[in-house]
């Protein structure tokens, strides 16, 4: 037999061997039928579920989600038609990039909204986490109940963020449909400082350390020493300070806090404890005074009130465990609320001399949506310590550019958010140094020309019909460290009954994710006709500005005064 086999080609051997599969015909049939049933069932169930959802009024269309790809091809056609003046190759590349983006989004949604995958995901993750002690791509398990955010751990253990190879790799990490990030934080921060200096404003940079820097022993008991820095940290500080950028390094203060046997971070959350945050606010206030950045205390009429809040950390949510699994305990935190003389919650003051740009480290304990109470955040504590009002732009996530971008957009719309400011404090999580997009953002105050955008009266709400012209990307629930998200939508053909508004365009923000669930707005497609309630954004900004938001790239939209959109029940038009 051996001699015979040696003479045969690999393919002949294969044919002989496949021809000798020893399986009972009935069993073979059963195996094939079972397999085909397994691979067909999820798609079939999904279509049936979508039809039922349509009947209930929870879906706008009877069309199954899986055939949406055919509609998305229109995006490529639009991209092809957009710039007829450019070369054919360039147009082809643009159309291809648009199609690729649509295909990736389609695939993500198909998986994310799958009833089948959803039913399997949580129990499977429970087994992996509770039995086998492993997290997922977002959340790493330390010693129970400690959890760590993966990008935080990566920031500490990976190569230095200013390492030449690392910068080059990140600078070329883009795809056809997603631009590469600008990886180097130093030029972006120096540029920001220079632009502020032109208006006589001092920049103070506040990189907030991340959990593995202060609690490495919760990940591995042998890692007792703390704080632990990314290997480029010292070079980064030196680069900024040598260029005259003022940096407040919070890490030593938090290390001292930990040394006193106090946790600097919540066990199951990405963020700092309330106590540690208060300490940094106190130290920063001292730093600002010592450097002559705040000369006098104007005084605010505020009092402190200590309350207890209980919550489950964002890292538990990112694990996507079954809802009633209770694999991780709730944490109890005492927060110090800063309230007015009549008990009213603290509010930012746009006329304040200091503007705080912050991320979720500024929003926690302040933005109720994060689940850890309100009126006790970093801005509140700093304002209380300084005895001064504060203006705040705080957006969860993307601290490398989101707040600078928001500031630039406001200036472009003619709202001078920097008027009267003497100091800008730029707070961001240290992980942004390793994975943030440090794009240069010009800050130019402009006068908005008359546009085609609608202008409904302020202080009122209008029920309108409109067509979705474009919608910004929406993150997948459970993949981001926040539970709510706001999306920018470009609306066209906006019209209301009584002809108050007729046929204009609007930039409108909608809640696209609430408590880790997509809202209907997240599922809108270009060209969809919707019915909504519009309010001026300025009426609701205080409640929603802190929530992470994705914007549209269209430059023209930056001129538009945004609106806030709400979804009345059962309002999506059926075609």
């Amino acid at each position, binding site marked *: 037999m051996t001699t015979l086999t040696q003479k045969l*080609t*690999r*393919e002949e051997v*294969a*044919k002989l*061997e*496949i021809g000798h*599969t*020893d*399986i009972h*015909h009935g069993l*073979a*049939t059963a*195996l*094939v039928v079972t*397999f*085909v049933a*397994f*691979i*067909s069932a*999820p*798609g079939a169930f999904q279509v049936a579920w979508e039809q039922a959802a349509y009947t209930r009024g929870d879906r706008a269309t009877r069309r199954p989600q*899986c055939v949406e790809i055919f509609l998305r091809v229109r995006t490529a056609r639009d991209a092809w038609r957009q710039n007829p003046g450019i070369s054919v190759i360039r147009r*082809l*590349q643009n159309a*291809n990039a648009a*199609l690729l983006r649509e*295909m990736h989004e389609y695939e993500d949604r*198909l*998986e994310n909204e*799958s009833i089948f*995958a959803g039913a*399997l*995901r949580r*129990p*499977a993750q429970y087994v*992996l986490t509770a039995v*086998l*002690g*492993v997290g*997922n791509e977002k959340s*790493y398990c*330390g010693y129970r109940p400690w959890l760590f955010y993966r990008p935080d*751990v990566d920031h*500490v*253990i*990976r190569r*230095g963020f200013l390492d030449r*190879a690392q910068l080059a*790799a990140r600078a*070329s990490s883009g795809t*056809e449909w997603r631009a590469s990030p600008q990886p180097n934080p130093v030029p972006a921060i120096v540029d920001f400082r220079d632009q502020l200096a032109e208006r006589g404003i001092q920049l103070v940079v506040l990189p907030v350390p991340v959990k593995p820097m202060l609690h*490495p022993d919760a990940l*591995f008991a*042998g*890692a007792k*020493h703390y704080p*632990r820095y990314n*290997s480029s940290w010292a070079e980064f500080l030196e680069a900024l300070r040598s260029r005259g950028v003022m940096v407040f390094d919070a890490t030593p203060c938090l290390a001292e806090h930990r040394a006193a046997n106090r946790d600097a971070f919540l066990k199951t959350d990405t963020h700092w404890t309330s106590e540690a945050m208060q300490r940094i606010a106190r130290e920063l206030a001292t730093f600002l005074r010592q450097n002559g950045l705040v000369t006098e205390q104007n005084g605010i009429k505020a009092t402190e009130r200590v309350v207890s809040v209980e919550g489950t950390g964002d890292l538990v949510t990112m694990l996507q465990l079954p809802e009633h699994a209770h694999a991780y305990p709730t944490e109890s935190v005492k927060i110090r609320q800063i309230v007015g003389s009549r008990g009213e919650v603290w509010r930012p003051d746009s006329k304040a001399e200091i503007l705080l740009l912050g991320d979720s480290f500024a929003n926690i304990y302040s933005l109720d949506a994060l689940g850890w109470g309100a009126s006790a955040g970093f801005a509140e504590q700093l304002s209380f310590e300084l005895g001064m009002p504060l203006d705040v732009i705080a957006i969860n996530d993307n601290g490398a550019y989101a707040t600078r971008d928001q500031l630039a957009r406001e200036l472009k719309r003619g709202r001078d958010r920097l008027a009267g400011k003497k100091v800008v404090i730029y707070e961001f999580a240290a992980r942004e140094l390793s994975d943030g997009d440090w794009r240069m953002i010009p800050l130019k105050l402009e006068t908005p020309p008359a546009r085609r955008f609608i202008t409904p009266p302020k202080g009122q709400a209008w029920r309108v019909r409109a067509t979705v012209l474009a919608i910004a990307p929406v993150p997948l629930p459970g*993949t981001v460290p926040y539970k709510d998200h706001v999306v920018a939508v470009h609306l066209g053909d906006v019209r209301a009954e009584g002809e108050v508004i007729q046929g204009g365009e609007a930039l409108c923000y909608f809640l696209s994710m609430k408590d880790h669930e997509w809202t209907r707005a997240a599922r809108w497609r270009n060209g969809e006709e919707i019915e909504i309630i519009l309010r001026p954004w300025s009426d609701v900004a205080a409640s929603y500005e802190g929530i992470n938001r994705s914007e549209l790239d269209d430059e023209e939209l930056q001129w538009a005064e945004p609106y806030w959109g709400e979804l009345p029940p059962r309002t999506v038009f059926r075609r």
Partner: protein
Amino acid sequence: MVFSSHIFLFYFLPVALLLYYSAPRRFRHFTLTILSYIFYGWTNPIFVLLLLVSTLIDYVCGLVIAFEGWRWRGEPPILAENTPRKSVQKAAVIASTCSNLSLLGFFKYFNFAVGNLNALAAWLGLPGLDVAFKVTLPLGISFYTFQSMSYTLDVYRGHARALKNFVDFACYVSMYSQLVAGPIIRFEEVADQFRRRDHTVTKFARGVAFFTMGLSKKILLANPCGKIADLVFGAAGAGPLEAWWGVLAYAFQIYFDFSGYSDMAIGLGLMMGFVFAKNFDSPYLAQSITEFWRRWHISLSTWLRDYLYIPLGGNRKGPARTYINLAVVMLLGGLWHGAAWNFVVWGALHGVLLAAERARGKTSLYGNLPPILRRALTFLFVLISWVFFRSPDLTAAIRYLGTMCGIVSVPPNAVMLKGLVYQPYYLLTMAIAALITWGAPQTWDWTRQISGWKALVIILLFVISAAVLATQAYNPFIYFIF
């Protein structure tokens, strides 16, 4: 689109099987070709054009080669093996080879060449090339150019009959089961299957078994091992033990990833009536590097042997030329895997050892040791060479080897890696991976006889894989980038 994805498993595959089996027999290749182009275009639609152009060139060249003595009537004849070819036939085979190699050369090595030229220019103090664009590597180009090229070469050599029907040829080149990561199916091996093949329930059932085994290798073993490897190789530094652990994890990852993919490709082929040959034969059981290359990515090593090593002269021109030929083949084989110097070094290391073993009569340098030690030493060499394969560049590879030897200082944060890479889940996965690598039968053998309990295991593995897949966003296929 990858096989281990929600969209492939639960949308593409059922629709593909439905369309394939509901199509009339004479339209099945057409259906399969359309499905394959959609599958390929899913990764980047624009490269479908490239695939089509490459296919067209080789199809026309194949016809030109076969045209002599045929004139379109009936089936093209197989050319006589030892007769001289006319100049037009020679021109056609050269055109096919050059066009394939040019495509591969441009898309795969352009950036590498520019980078090296600029580095050289900088070293000489000269201005570098100012190239405003970066070439994107089309998925699977290394596989389908080799596969397509084998067609014209086989027709030219008289090893196979040319295909008259363009759809049949396009189907051969683009078949989604092995288009993007092999195995490289040589035309002469499957030519007759494009003319006639059986579709039986037994074959389909074996295909299900192959596919499921491959899927579970990929999702349950390769992905977790890949996470360990990514953590260690991506870290600023590691302790010596973690460095060894990381490269061992990578060895398991690349084996289960690629052999899993090959199993899935063979399984999908069987579901559509095709039989593809074995691509892996327990390579980590090899007792020498020569044997390793008989067991690892067999379709590539036989391709390189038949289309490169033998035309170079093989072992017919004396020992010195044999060693040179082996080294050249392995260097080019290394470069085939990736346009970077670390791949060249990886290929060179294997080439040198192959030549050394050839000098000893195809036995390893440690051939006198007991088999278990020969296996261990061969695996050790393979493990060390994987460092070059996995590292982002040559400097990183040398540094990593230094860490493994304990001669590179360990950065203080490296200790934190221990908390991540020794988690119970990873320890269990690595133990199972080792057990299967060195103790379990191959998919080929295990599925030869499928009893009731084996069918149950197959279904169970599919369900577990689908459940774990639902929790994973991390799902790379290593060989997709080659």
